[in-house]
């Protein structure tokens, strides 16, 4: 039995479904990321899991027990979960120590043990010397560490993280990311992490749930989701991919700009029907010599380039704009005519 199950979970605001009948199973100790743009419903889903919002339809189950349903909701205080917020939500009128110990206080843990456990966590998160300070005296990064410590201390069944790194400076994000992952390794708490940053998701998650407009687009490991996106949206959102419009010919062949191309795998629309396929920018080869020939190539005109040190990103026009990663040594001016070679096994057909 999965640890956390969402079945047909739905929430409507003003008649519009913000979360639309999503289904998800999370195993014990899994680290799941809900990834998507603003408004995709990921935070609403998280808040329903927390019990802060009531669902309009569907269920939230933990360990088989129904926690949320349209018929009733077990309130947050009885779910034994932990949560980290984007705004840190560290209580400004309590010291760091009091913040961290709060969960234990609510669970009526006796003072002596409370003290012991709080000390332990403060040591583990290197916050001991800040124990008597107030949040206003701390930096953003330190406050979020306090929030982490607070969540970990109460030893929750499930840890919910709502874009915890969004408010931090870029250099701090890396450190805190490692911290979160480290604590996960140590405590093996089932974790649901919400973010709009695909780099974060890829770095931290065991599985990624890509969401868009209230629906789940794809669930998979970072590699699955990145390498084998199953929809245009996932392909674009995870980044690094081109999504090219084409028309299905037959079998694994599609037509682009009047030419036929072979695709490796994926979903095909049906002969004569329009579809797309995705291919990574670094899986395309920019061939400056028009005479080179070869299968699976298309003619293109260079529209522009950006030198990025390790490589160059070229924008080329095959009838649509395509981004190609080329070696840094290859420097072509605008308007150059080139060939773009497609590796069939690196192209994936998409119908959504």
């Amino acid at each position, binding site marked *: 039995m999965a640890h956390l199950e969402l079945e047909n979970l739905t929430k409507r605001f003003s008649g519009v479904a913000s979360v639309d009948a999503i289904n998800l199973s999370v195993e014990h100790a899994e680290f799941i990321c809900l990834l998507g743009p603003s408004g995709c419903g990921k935070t609403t889903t998280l808040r329903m899991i927390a019990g802060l919002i009531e669902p309009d339809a569907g269920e939230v189950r933990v360990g088989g027990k129904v926690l949320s349903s349209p018929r009733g*909701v077990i*309130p947050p*205080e009885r779910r034994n979960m932990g949560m980290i*917020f984007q705004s840190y939500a560290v209580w400004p*009128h309590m010291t760091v120590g009091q913040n961290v110990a709060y969960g234990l206080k*609510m*669970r009526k843990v006796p003072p002596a043990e409370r003290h012991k456990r709080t000390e332990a966590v403060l040591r583990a998160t290197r916050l001991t010397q800040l124990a008597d300070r107030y949040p206003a005296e701390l930096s953003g990064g330190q406050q979020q560490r306090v929030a982490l410590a607070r969540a970990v201390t109460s030893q929750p069944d499930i840890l*919910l993280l709502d874009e915890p790194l969004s408010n931090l400076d870029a250099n701090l994000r890396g450190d805190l990311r490692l911290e979160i992952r480290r604590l996960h390794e140590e405590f093996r708490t089932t974790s649901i992490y919400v973010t709009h940053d695909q780099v974060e998701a890829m770095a931290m998650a065991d599985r990624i749930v890509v969401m868009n407009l209230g629906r789940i687009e794809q669930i998979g490991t970072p590699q699955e989701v990145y390498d084998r996106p199953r929809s245009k949206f996932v392909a674009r959102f995870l980044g690094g991919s081109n999504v090219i419009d084409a028309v299905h010919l037959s079998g694994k062949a599609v037509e682009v700009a009047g030419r036929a191309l072979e695709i490796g795998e994926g979903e095909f629309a049906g002969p004569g029907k329009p579809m797309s396929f995705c291919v990574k920018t670094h899986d395309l080869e920019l061939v400056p010599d028009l005479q080179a020939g070869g299968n699976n190539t298309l003619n293109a005109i260079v529209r522009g380039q950006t030198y990025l040190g390790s490589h160059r990103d070229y924008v080329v026009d095959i009838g649509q704009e395509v981004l190609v990663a080329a070696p840094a040594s290859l420097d072509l001016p605008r308007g150059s005519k080139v060939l773009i070679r497609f590796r069939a096994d690196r192209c994936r057909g998409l119908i959504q």
Partner: protein
Amino acid sequence: MRPAADAIEGTPERSSARSIDWTAPFSIVMALLLASLVLLPMFWLALTSLRDDSGRFTLEHYRQLVVDPAFLKPLANTLWTSCAVGALCVIAAAPMSWLVSRTDLPGKRLLRVLILASFVTPPFLGAFAWVLLGGPNAGLLNQWYYGLFGLKPFEAAPLLNIFSASGMVFVIFLYTFPYVFTFVANSLDLIPSELEEASAILGASPFRTALHITLPLGLPALLAGFLVAFLQSMTLFGPPAILAMPAGIDVITTKIWSLFQFPPRLGLAAAASLPLLPITVALLRAQTLILGRRGYAVISGKSGGRQLIRLGAWKVPALALFALVLGCSIALPYGVLLRTSFVKNWSRPLADNLTLEHWRFVFLEFSQTKLALQNTFVLGIAAATAGTILVTAVGYLSLRKIVWGHRSLAFLANAPVAIPGIVLAVGLFLSYTRPPLVLYGTLWIIFFAYLTKELPVGYQQISASLKAVHPELEDASRIFGATRLRALFDITAPLIRNGVIATWIFIFIGSIRELSATILLFTARTKTISVTMFDLRESNDWGPIAVLSTTMLLITFGMVAVIYRFTDRRPT
């Protein structure tokens, strides 16, 4: 259903699949309470205006209102004097707030405190003081003027005659400009200085910048301030009664009051009151449209963080402006009241004139002092406490959007701002001088008047405070095991503590200085200080008036200072 008192103690919830939702019935109770406070009086007002003495439907009262010059003239007077007050406030407050917000004027903190003092001074008290200062022949300023130029009273025109429409406008202005100042200063505080710096780089002097850049940016606030000043002026009773009536000039509030003199012509009074409502509603809508969703703003001491314009030698005339306005609203009036309380004959020089007889009279002989003080305080404390609890509950329910219909709750809490004090009093009188609930003659009816009237101020204060508490702070506490009520107690309450205290103070001060509603609702045993002072004016007893005024000011400022000391100083 869980009553509110129980909820704060945090009794543990029973275990069940669905948590007991106390918020719905609680908010229904709140809504009913608010509705009865606000809507009931208005209902009776409308009803009475349409009925004649025998209870039959009639439009006679309204007809009289429209044709009788005895009504049209006061209405016209009200409109033009309120416009004048608004204009004067804007003309004075605009440069003052610009100077405080955008320049390196010295002593800003003190100036803001003094402006706050103007805000807190009851206008009728200022009117009393200005009678002593600006009475055309015996007023101290006029006497000084005559002396300076060797003129004789009654033969030469006085420097100023406070017993006139313009005198009244002047005095109302002195105690209304803080509203406009606050609006404009707060909005100027928000303008990034880069906008002005850009102008300076292009060659404009500070004053041209002020004219072409800052002024247009501050225009919405100026307009909104004008509207508020207009509204304030329209609803005042004290200054018109003290300064305009002796000159034979009536405004709508004094007219309504005169309709209440026995035998009261309630139908006419009701009909005369009602037209004020659509005017105020229209002005408030205009204000909201101009300002966006910001309503009241609180005076705060925002400093620096931006480039201030250097005044150089212009500091002197700038400070002179403040000295002039604040001198007229604070220094001179407080001074003359203090002086008058210690002299036998207020218009004669100090020599041979000092006495303690007025103080002795007021505190040892005057049988009404003790009762009036008691009533004023009981009412102030009761209204402040009940009001704070009410607006906090309504504010919380409304801002956290906990219940369906939370917008109506917020609307009801703000509605009384559209009801002038005297109109509310007429409505309350009509509601509570009939069975089943006859409250006229008790302190209750005055308590309701104060509570209702101060709701909007309290609500604005508390919602500003609540808005500053991120809802996630409460969510976090619930995640970690606190019930909603526990979260309120542990998290929200400490964080809004300062806001709650400020709300209490605002409502308390607003209540103890109230006159325009009390003047219709009081009886012999339910007199307040303001009404007692007003009564003493009838017989020209300026000594006792001065003593009571000084006492009232001391108490007001004393309470503000005491409570300020107890506000939380922990870093938040």
